């Protein structure tokens, strides 16, 4: 009986140590490549519209589960807001943000997943729909998807922070895909 109690207490302590924590994803950082891509190709100021979470998405919109830890967005507890902030920062750094512009970019976060269940690799899949409207008329409407993979670990103390730090890089890659789309640039620059 005593043995069982000790085992139960020890397991409880382990669980308390390793599960149930809430962590926050790192804030987004614009990449030089993305900023230069925008500065080299886009010439018209734009404003940012609404970014929403896909109502059909079951998870990953407010928090992402990393081995029992909940990773929340640093922007209004919403990963749709994270994407909006990422786009806003890139446009601002590229000197393309204009609150009075008639060109507006809005979006919807469709899928937002980080998976570190495996012991050797971590995976992420982020998918979003981007819409450009010029004076209210849709000029661009596409879904972009990025899949990423990195070295992970059996140890949660390694795997969880690594996944946490990779999240902004995954969003950077999603936006690289967007800025590299000739239709996106054409929709921005169209006279």
């Amino acid at each position, binding site marked *: 009986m005593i*043995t069982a109690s*000790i*085992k139960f207490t*020890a397991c409880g302590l*382990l669980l308390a*140590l*390793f599960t149930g924590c809430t962590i*926050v994803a*790192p*804030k987004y*950082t*614009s*990449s*030089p*490549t993305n*900023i*230069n891509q925008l*500065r*080299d190709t886009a010439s018209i100021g734009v404003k940012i519209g609404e970014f929403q979470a896909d109502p059909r998405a079951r998870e990953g919109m407010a928090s992402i589960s990393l081995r029992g830890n909940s990773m929340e967005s640093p922007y209004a507890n919403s990963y749709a807001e994270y994407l909006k902030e990422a786009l806003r*920062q890139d446009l601002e*750094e590229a000197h393309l943000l204009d609150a009075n512009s008639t060109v507006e970019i809005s979006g919807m976060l469709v899928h937002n997943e980080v998976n570190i269940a495996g012991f050797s690799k971590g995976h992420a899949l982020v998918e979003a729909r981007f819409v450009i409207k010029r004076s209210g008329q849709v000029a661009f409407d596409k879904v972009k998807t990025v899949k990423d993979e990195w070295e992970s670990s059996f*140890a*949660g*103390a*390694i795997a969880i*922070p*690594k996944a*946490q*730090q990779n999240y902004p890089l995954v969003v950077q890659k999603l936006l690289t895909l967007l800025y590299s789309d000739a239709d996106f640039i054409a929709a921005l620059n169209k006279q």
Partner: protein
Amino acid sequence: MTKFIAFLSLAVATLLFGCAHPFNIAPDLSRINGQEIKPIDVNVGYFISSMDATREVITPGGGGDKVKYTPYRDLEPALFKVLSNTFRRAYPLLSPDDRATIKAKNITFVFVPQIETDSSSDSALTWPPTRFKLTLTCQAFDSEGKAIWMKQIVGEGNASFGEFKSYFPLAARRASEKVLLELQRALTEAPEFRGIPRSPAP
């Protein structure tokens, strides 16, 4: 029962101690502000080798643990921002003598950073460093490859548990912010980058 406790102790020790915790030493970019600066009207390039960009560095944290980070990758966006604040445009180069990009982008100066770091902690119970030291040596070359400027900047950041519990790399963030803002000030004041003919826009 003895075996179970031994296994449990080993598992806890493996999971909790001696780890190199992933870490990011980047500053808060919103604080690398260039609004007061009148940019120098030339384009510049910077070179970080692919080996440096992916190099992982491990330095001490607290409680016998360590922290692991990629200093060049972490600091590149801040370096880019400092150069973009100070000059008309900044471009990454494939080599210090990347003639194709230097020519295509009308690059007048090339910057090559060298980063050294160290960290420590006065806490035996928490792994994030309470002190972080960053040394940035930045050398500038003209478009012909002649060294024209060099600056070494050392910055230290400190953070106590009460401060870093919401952001573990806080001491590193403070150190890198100091160093990058000092670099920006030094570039702005250096006479070597002023008084040269304008290069045409690319």
